[in-house]
């Protein structure tokens, strides 16, 4: 292999609430990651400029800057195109704002997420990094009509065109497309996505997923709402 894999992956947590910072840090450290925590954008960016972490978890509002996390994300993305970034938000409504900004984050989570779930998705993102660095393995690709899903790299494509989904969105699409025609209710989708969300948030996730597919194919309507029950993938 052409690269040196460090002993411990380094995760940067940028969170202005010290208690949360410490809790997230402790939980992830227990998973064997090296943790660096920062309380504001300035200190985090200063550290990133000298040394890039392997993954960043960023709170959107940082001290006085209500959307300091967005700026930090943009700056960090400028430093590295590959580094996985997870947004943590306190408000559901920010999820939509985040999607509109297309800042290149890999996942958006509300702070309701439990630590095991957080750990699961950190692990998933590292796995994807690893998969991306490996040569193509088309055996992992699932095809459902125009849709192709790469379970290893956690990438989707529609009619061959890549559709960039966040991790949560990818897991939702994955859960739906695995059994086309079967209705997945909200709870099943939440379980699949390793999140605890309320109904509205699931609805807005689905809405966002549809929008992303429609950007590739305006005629996309493979995700069907079964009112009162949930959603299903139709081919």
């Amino acid at each position, binding site marked *: 292999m052409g690269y040196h894999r460090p002993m411990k992956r380094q995760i940067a947590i940028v969170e202005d609430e010290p208690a949360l910072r410490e809790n*997230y840090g402790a939980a992830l450290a227990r998973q064997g990651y090296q943790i660096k925590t920062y309380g504001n954008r300035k200190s985090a960016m200063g550290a990133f400029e000298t040394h890039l972490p392997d993954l960043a978890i960023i709170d959107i509002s940082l001290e006085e800057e209500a959307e300091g996390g967005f700026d930090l994300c943009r700056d960090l993305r400028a430093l590295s195109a590959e580094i996985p970034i997870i947004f943590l938000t306190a408000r559901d409504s920010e999820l939509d704002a985040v999607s509109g900004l297309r800042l290149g984050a890999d996942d958006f989570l509300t702070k*309701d997420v439990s630590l095991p779930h957080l750990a699961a998705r950190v692990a998933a993102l590292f796995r994807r990094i690893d998969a991306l660095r490996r040569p193509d393995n088309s055996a992992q690709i699932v095809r459902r009509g125009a849709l192709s899903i790469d379970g290893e790299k956690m990438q989707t494509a529609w009619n061959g065109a890549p559709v960039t989904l966040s991790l949560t969105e990818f897991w939702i699409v994955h859960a739906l497309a695995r059994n086309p025609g079967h209705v997945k209710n909200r709870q099943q989708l939440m379980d699949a996505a390793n999140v605890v969300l309320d109904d*509205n948030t699931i609805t807005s996730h689905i809405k966002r997923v549809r929008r992303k597919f429609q950007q590739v194919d305006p005629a996309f309507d493979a995700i069907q709402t079964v009112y009162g029950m949930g959603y299903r993938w139709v081919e």
Partner: protein
Amino acid sequence: MSIRLQLLIIALTTLVLPWAGCQYARELESTLRVSQENSLQAAAQTIANALSAQSQRVFSAVDGEQPFDGAQGDLYLFPLIAQPLLDGYREDWDLDVEPTALRADGLTGRVQAGVTEHYLMLYVEVDDAHFEAEPGEVSPEQDSFDRVNVAWQRSDGSLDSVFFATSAPGLIQAQRVEGTVETGERVVVEPRIQAFWLQTSRGYHVEARIPRSMVGSRLWIEAVDGQSRRTAGFMGADPPRGGRLITPTPGLGPLLSTFIGAGTQATVVDANALKLGSAGSVVLNKDDPDGAEGSWYRRFVAGDTSRWPVRLSAPDHMEGHSVASAIAGRPSAEWLRAGANGSALLSAAAPIIVDERIHGAVVLEQGGDQLIDLRDRALTHLFNLTLLATALAVAIAFGIATWISVRIDRLRLAADTAVTNDGRIRLDMPESRRTDEIGALSRGFERLLARLNEHTQYLRTLGGKLSHELRTPLTIVRSSLDNLESEGLRADQQGYVRRAREGASRLQSILSALGAASRVEESIKQAERVSFDLKELMQSAIEGYRDGFPAARIELTTPTDTCFMHGAPDLVVQMLDKLIDNAVDFCTPSGTIRVGLTRSSTRYEITVDNDGPPIPEDMLNRLFESLFEHRQGGDDKPHFGLGLYIVRLIAEFHGGSAAAANRSDGGGAVFTVTLPMI
């Protein structure tokens, strides 16, 4: 009491104006009366003074030393206007006074005397049913016939006498006894004295005519019944007593008439109140020629005249306080009622004093009508003006009151409806641009409503804010618990952590419920409208609810064909969620939830009808307000009264409305959501 009524009553107090007018008119009238009294009394005094200067012309025929005494045979000679016919009747004397009684001495009779320019008239009525005729040859000794003896004093003081008797009723002449007892008496006819003897069923009348010049100042009359020799009347005595003739003074009338004007009657009486002469006449109240109007007003203002004495009129004498007072020496005036309708009459009297002795009095009488006319005219004017003013005041007051109460009503209505059924607050009030107190009140309302609105807004967003603010500390707690668990705990410690986790997750669901409304508001803002089949959506959703609430019986009725509408299907489902949630909570265990979809020309109506207890009437309209909760009894889920509020928000987003009602049978509640098709 309404403002209108209050101001009306205030305005009616202007009726005090006509009342004050009446008082004023009354005062005016009494002042006028007093001045009329004074002037009439002054006139009477003037006339009295003038007359006392020529007392010979006034009292020439009167011996006023003794009071008039009909019982002594004093006779008043009524002035007769026309010469009566000698016919035994006194009707043509034109006097409305009855004859006076003769002194009875076994026989009764009545007498009346009158005077014309040349004659003294006598009228004698005798109650003597048995007529004894005069024989052809009479001698006084053997007289047993009915007769009337008349004796008088001549002007020179000597006595004279005649008698009236007849063999047959009719025109007769008086007879006189001539000669003395010594020389032999004989009866001769006195041709200058004529009479008429009239026989009636009760007796007879004698109407006699004696030349004025024959009689002096005294005269006696005696009726004799021929058979019984009983008599009635008086015969002369020596020295002469009684039988005085009281005569109106000739020429006094014309003299008096020079003193008085029209409408006044002047009368001179002697010390016995017998009339000596009069002039002029009183004009009494003509019977209201100007109609009922005058008398209508008069009813309100007329002084009380019922206490006034009635004017007593007699042709021969005058009565009354003023006359009596004047004869006693004090000039006096009084108001009397006279005539059939009690018209006012002023009587003023002044004594005529000659040589410090009261000889008689002048009495002036005048109608009070001029006063009433004057008063009525002023009063009618006053009444018309004040009534007009009152009517105007009442109308203006009523108008203003109506205007004010309409404005207040408008304000009240606006205040009543400022908080709409769905809990929204209308901030604009009517009348707020006015500068008066009502405008100030309206602005006060506006400020109050603005404050209320701020407060309501605060309450409405409080849930969302709380939910947001509490989320971070809750996350700290949960993440700490996660960490704690990962550290590896002893079995006894795990119980605490589990409980802490349960508490945290309950807190989480409370926060989530609290923030639900603001999340819905948020998602409404971003909702996109698409065309969808409402029927299919409902069928699918109800299917889901049957799975979700296996214990509940949910029935759905829809039109047979598709029901397309333009809207946000996600939101409509969310709305159905809340409606079904609500229905399930209130439905009785064995009850049914009936969901219906009906279609009219432009809109759909979704009804959710559940068996269960009715909703209290006063809560029906408030159910859709934010944070309104009337739920009793508990389940685990936190409730913040947001479910139906969300229903309303979604219905209104679609341009529709939501309402709740109790079923007419009282066995359940019906929630109705109306959604326009487009």
